[in-house]
């Protein structure tokens, strides 16, 4: 089993059964208020595929034992059945009393998977073994020590910017033998902020001041760096006309321009292009300005932030972009 690799089981018992359970949960209790403690009425217990197989084998043993009146075989079958039955309680006990204390995901850029952190507190004086969180897309597993909080991470692919709701997931375990699965379905009320995807090859950072917007930053060390396809926001002066004519496609020159000045990212001064492309470029600019430690200001139709630097500023700006016109 060296190279064994288990793919995360997508559904507990097939799509339709899972959907049915989900609908029931949605109707009966909906999204839980945190902290949410798993109690007996929230927990389902059903045999796993291996558990069903084991049951068939036990039934065969018992029938054979009864037929031949072989008492030892019967006794073995009954004791094993009793063990199996007891593991339903152990599986239940392993997740009951766990408390869902937190659901949060740090913002991500569109296209990156959102990582929802599921915080499970174990308020009791006993170990919790192999607690799993599973969604349709991913799964995670952890042991939780007494009076500790375990953290499980569920990934969720992101499409577009804005808020993304966390998909329903299961907290489950098959402790101790893998014969039974005890699980609870959670319809979370949690969301992840998805920033616009940064443009791959954004135009150079614009300089301070309205007048200069779209013009090259006149730094001392400005020099030609390369060519790339024209993108909205590229100053007209930068267009490499001769190259563009040859390729029947617009190309811009990329210039390097180190500068200590603050720069201004102004929605109104972005020319052409659609909203998403412009937001992508502004996102890329913000990241670049942060990296180069150039203070930047943001002006959008919905909000404006003065020039600043730092994570808080960046996050605030990105949030404005993420939620623009949504």
């Amino acid at each position, binding site marked *: 089993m060296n190279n064994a690799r288990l793919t995360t089981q997508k559904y507990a018992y097939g799509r339709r059964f899972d959907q049915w359970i989900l609908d029931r949960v949605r109707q009966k209790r909906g999204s839980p208020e945190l902290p949410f403690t798993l109690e007996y009425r929230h927990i389902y217990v059903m045999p796993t595929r291996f558990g069903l197989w084991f049951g068939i084998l036990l039934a065969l043993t018992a029938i054979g034992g009864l037929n031949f009146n072989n008492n030892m075989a019967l006794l073995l079958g009954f*004791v094993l059945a009793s063990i199996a039955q007891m593991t339903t309680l152990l599986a239940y006990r392993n997740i009951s009393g766990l408390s869902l204390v937190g659901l949060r995901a740090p913002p991500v850029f569109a296209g990156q998977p959102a990582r929802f952190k599921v915080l499970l507190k174990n308020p009791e004086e006993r170990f919790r073994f192999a607690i799993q969180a599973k969604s349709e897309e991913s799964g995670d597993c952890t042991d939780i020590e007494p009076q500790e909080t375990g953290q499980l991470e569920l990934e969720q692919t992101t499409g577009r910017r804005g808020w993304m709701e966390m998909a329903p997931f299961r907290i489950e375990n098959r402790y101790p033998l893998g014969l039974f699965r005890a699980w609870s379905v959670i319809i979370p009320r949690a969301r992840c902020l998805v920033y616009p995807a940064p443009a791959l090859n954004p135009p150079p950072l614009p300089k301070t001041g309205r007048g200069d917007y779209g013009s090259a930053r006149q730094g001392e060390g400005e020099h030609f760096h390369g060519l790339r396809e024209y993108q909205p926001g590229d100053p007209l002066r930068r267009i490499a006309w001769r190259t563009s004519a040859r390729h029947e496609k617009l190309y811009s020159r990329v210039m390097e321009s180190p500068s200590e000045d603050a720069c201004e990212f102004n929605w109104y001064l972005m020319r052409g292009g659609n909203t998403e492309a412009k937001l992508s470029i502004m996102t890329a600019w913000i990241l670049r300005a942060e990296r180069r430690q150039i203070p930047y200001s943001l002006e959008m139709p919905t909000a404006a932030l003065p020039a600043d630097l730092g994570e808080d500023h960046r996050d605030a700006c990105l949030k404005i972009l993420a939620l623009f016109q949504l």
Partner: protein
Amino acid sequence: MMNPDQKSIFWVIATLSVAMAPQIVRMPLPIIAMALFPLLWRIGAELLGWKALPALIRHSATILALLTLFFSYGNVTGRRAAVSLLTVMLALKLIESYRIRDARLIVSFSLFLCATQFLFSQGILMPFYGAVTVIIALVTLTQLHRKEAFESVGETPAITASIFSELGFSLRLLALAIPVGLAFFLFFPRWATPLWGIPETTLDSKTGLSGSMSPGSIQSLFMDDSPAFRVEFESAIPQPPELYWRGPVFWNFDGKTWSGSFFGKNIAAKSRPDDQGAPWRYTVQLEPNERNWLFALDYPATTPMDTRVSMDFQIFRREAVTQLLQYSMVSNPDFADTPQMAETLKTSALDLPNGFNPRTRELVQGWRESGLTGRALVQHALDFFNQEAFYYSLDAPLLGKHSVDEFLFDSRTGYCEHYASTFTVMMRMAGIPARIVTGYQGGWYNTMGEYLLVRQSDAHAWSEVWFPGDGWTRVDPTAAVSPARVNRGSLGALSAPRHLLDYAWLRNMRNGIDVVQQRWNDWVIKFGASQQAKMFSPLGLERMTPSTLVIALFVAIGLFSAVLLPFILRTRGPGRKDPLQAAWQKFLKRLQSAGCEIQPSNGAIELAHEAALHLPGDSRAIHQIADLYSRYRYSPLPPSLNELKSAIKEFHPKKTAV
């Protein structure tokens, strides 16, 4: 070498090895090799990092295994062959199991294999075998579960358990499951008759006496100390010379081998001894011997229901005894067996093959010519055995064509079957109808269990001669040579030990331990539909029907659950106090009793400052404790907790008037 990831595969191998152990020792050698090879290969592959075998080799190994099985057993429908097949296939599965699913398949089938072993033996050691297999399988399944859970994550589990805690957990699980398992065992309605028959009338390991007798066949049983049957007497116990347990009776002799006669086996006994006044009433618990005859003392007056008594007083059952069988008997020795015998039977009781044993014929002819007949001749023959230099011994040389001649004149050393055979041949030569009876003689009385234990080593052969009017009369020529055989049992008759570990005290201990086996048989193995129905008769419930049994089952499970459930589901809240906090509370209490007002919201250092103002005499101690506390709490390199504890212990502030 071994990484933690491999741990579970070694547990899988261990589970299979333990489960197949009893089977392995009974399989033919080539099949043992077929079962062990994949096991060893897998261990080697894990330890030395061998690559997986190509499909061609795996498939050819499977085909080779099937062929070996077929040629070793002749067929694959027999029970032993079927279980061997399961064993070998499971072992072969090991060489291609790299997924958790396969590992679980092997573990669950190993448990099934364990159950099949009880078809062959339900001895007293088998429960331990079952328990060990279950515990190891539980550990393995627990490991596989953890492996499966964490495999998708790609990280190793935070909590790793020691082997002792894993075994302990499995043991607890088993112990907790036993009450409910027993409730099922007792109350689950049993089937009085099987739904489908046992496909074969016998298993492959026939034990005990066989259906024919040739020199050496009983001698081989002498080494076998396993129990043949146990007898509990309701009446007085017969004296050792009376304990002849009658089994197969032989009429036909081909010069070497004795075998039963068709008439003897198939014609029913014409008359039976009187049941009234029969001195011996007893119950026999017969170990499965895969034969269809039962053993009884001469002569059976009443016999079990589903049996018949043949003309030569063998007791036959329709099916072979493949499970422990208990039957009650009444025997009456005061009986004349066939006082008048038909000519055809007389002829067959005198029949001898031509051209064998001329020297014996000459000797017997001499006796007859000297005028000896009937009982006098029998006595003469016994005296001959007694007075000439005959030896009762296990080291009998192999005999050739004229086996009786060679024994009588040359070797003169033999076991009971030599004497019985020779004597019977001599009687027939003398014109006295004679036959051979095999069975067991004697037994060991277990005073602790108050039953008679008859072992395979008590197997015996003797003769019967026929006289008009008196009928068949038992004559034991072995007793003439070695009276101790009959009076003190088979082991008492020999001076030398049979094998290296043949000590009297060890035999006695074994006999003593046999009482456990007898109880086990009594209470567990022979429990069935009829015992189940009568289970509550002491409580006034005469007969349990399936429905009352099911009710009893639910009541029992309910009762056990009421006890076990709170135990299994118990929760322990945050009971254990933080020791640091406990010490700190103690400190605060001391401050309070010294007259300090305490603001619980204050931090430790603030609190210390305030307290020091109130208790200037103790200010050093207060600051020291507060400093230790905050360092213990917040410093990356905390001091020992004991330092803080002892500081608080020694802190006795003087009360000040405020």
